[in-house]
């Protein structure tokens, strides 16, 4: 069940330039969450901006019933979000969308770029709790942007980093690590979230080695629940119908996209 809830903010920190982490108690939403789902957030109390903003579940604390989001300030909605203080409320709708499938895999690969790492953290934790071996390729422009590093370490994943400026890990695109460092025969499934060119490269890799996988897509949203048809998208150019990223996704099978 999804619902709308005013979450009590218990922590709100700046993690790096333009990157923030906010945690709030959401007793009705938190128990229903799955990795890959998102919440639809009212970022301010006025009509500007008018619409909610979709943000992935970065993690969920099942004991506290809290939800944590990782967000990057890119425009006025996320800018306003930074003003919400601890002890204030954040209004969210959730959990929304279709999350990642959680097959009975022994070893999977996660590839995250920039703030696209967000849904992969929650996923990695849940997969680890199910005893799955999780390898994570995590890329960003600079080392300061690898803000999920500590979480990934504490989750206990095999972690490889890439930065464009070489300030941490491999110097270059995170997808270049795929061919250098990953043995495709060790991997049963690939999950990826990040900039579209990155995800395309991950899909190419998966296709090449016949590995199945899932991607998390983004599209501008109004309703977030499948009612407005605003977040439509053709998964393949030749498709004659549109999917709704908010409801049919945001997670889609790599087999379905092109």
């Amino acid at each position: 069940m999804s619902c709308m809830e005013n979450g009590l903010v218990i922590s709100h920190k700046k993690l790096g330039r333009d990157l923030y982490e906010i945690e709030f108690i959401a007793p009705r939403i938190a128990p229903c969450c799955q990795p890959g789902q998102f919440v639809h957030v009212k970022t301010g109390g006025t009509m500007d901006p008018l619409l909610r903003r979709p943000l992935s579940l970065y993690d969920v604390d099942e004991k506290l019933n809290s939800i944590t989001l990782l967000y990057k300030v890119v425009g006025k909605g996320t800018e306003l979000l930074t003003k919400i203080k601890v002890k204030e409320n954040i209004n969210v709708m959730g959990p929304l969308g279709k999350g990642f499938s959680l097959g009975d895999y022994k070893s999977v690969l996660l590839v995250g770029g920039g703030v696209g790492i967000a849904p992969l953290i929650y996923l990695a934790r849940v997969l680890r709790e199910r005893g799955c071996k999780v390898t994570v390729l995590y890329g960003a422009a600079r080392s300061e942007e690898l803000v999920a590093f500590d979480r990934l370490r504490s989750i206990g994943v095999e972690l490889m980093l890439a930065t464009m400026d070489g300030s941490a890990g491999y110097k270059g695109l995170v997808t270049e690590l795929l061919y250098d460092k990953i043995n495709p025969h060790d991997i049963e499934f690939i999950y990826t979230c990040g900039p579209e060119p990155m995800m395309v490269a991950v899909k190419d890799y998966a296709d090449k080695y016949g590995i199945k996988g899932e991607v998390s897509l983004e599209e501008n949203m109004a309703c977030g629940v499948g009612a407005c048809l605003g977040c439509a998208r053709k998964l393949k150019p030749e498709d004659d119908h549109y999917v709704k990223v908010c409801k049919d996704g945001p997670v889609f099978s790599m087999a379905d996209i092109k």
Partner: protein
Amino acid sequence: MTRAENKLNENDLDISVNLGGLILKNPVTVASGTFGYGMEYEDFVDISEIGGVIVKGTTLEPRSGNPIPRIVETPAGMLNAIGLENPGIDVFLRDFLPYLKEKGVTVIANIAGNTIEEYARIAAKIENSEGIAAIELNISCPNVKKGGLQFGTNPDTVKEVVEAVKRETSLPVIPKLSPNVTDIVEIAKAAKAGGADALSMINTLMGMAIDIKNKKPVLANIFGGLSGPAIKPVALRMIYQVYKEVTLPILGGGGILDYKDALEFIMAGATAVSIGTGNFVNPCLALEIVEGIKKYMVQENIKSISELVGAAVIK
């Protein structure tokens, strides 16, 4: 009589309305295209308590809608160019309506055609099925090439299309007027002449946004329909004008975000209101507005909502 005795109880209130034969348990509906087929919001709100659910615009044949991007936020509003993506009337009646009927929802169909003939054929199909309380005629959708806008901007066609639909159905017929016209009263009169039972107003204003980075229109369709609080003043003005000149009940909407907005519409002449973009901001809005109106009525000692309809109109 003391104040306490004088005070109304919420249960004494009469908030049901008659919209040209369409009886709504309360005056708050949700607007077409903003509430899907109801089920999308079932987790958030008891959709059977909403005054009426106007489902997504439906055409004779299925439509896949416009290319993307289809929406963009604007100051206190948004533009949409969905392009009437829908599965067609047959699929709607077969796959979606039963759910709504079972839930006890007051369903209002919203139909659009490429030709007057198509409007009539959809209406006939609706007439032959059960569970729809009224038909809203979308003669004002700015996002489809054929049909759509031009129907709503020409008084003669407005009259014709209403007549054609009326011939096929015994349900209340509620044409939805386009605000993109010089004289809304003329269009409203034409709708009345065609036999309209009520008027729905307003649909979206035609607008656009430019992507300055890529030097092109943001929407793939170039133009889209502007909705949300930004258009509220225009909606109120048109309803006020029509209320003064045309004796048909009005289903008013355009930018309603709270019960005070709803009261503005009612006082400007709307018998009932519709919530569109507001649903995206707050999926519980329709019922919160019903509560707000009730509280207001108790406070102001107003027993029947009808006392408020047109209360601000200077005759």
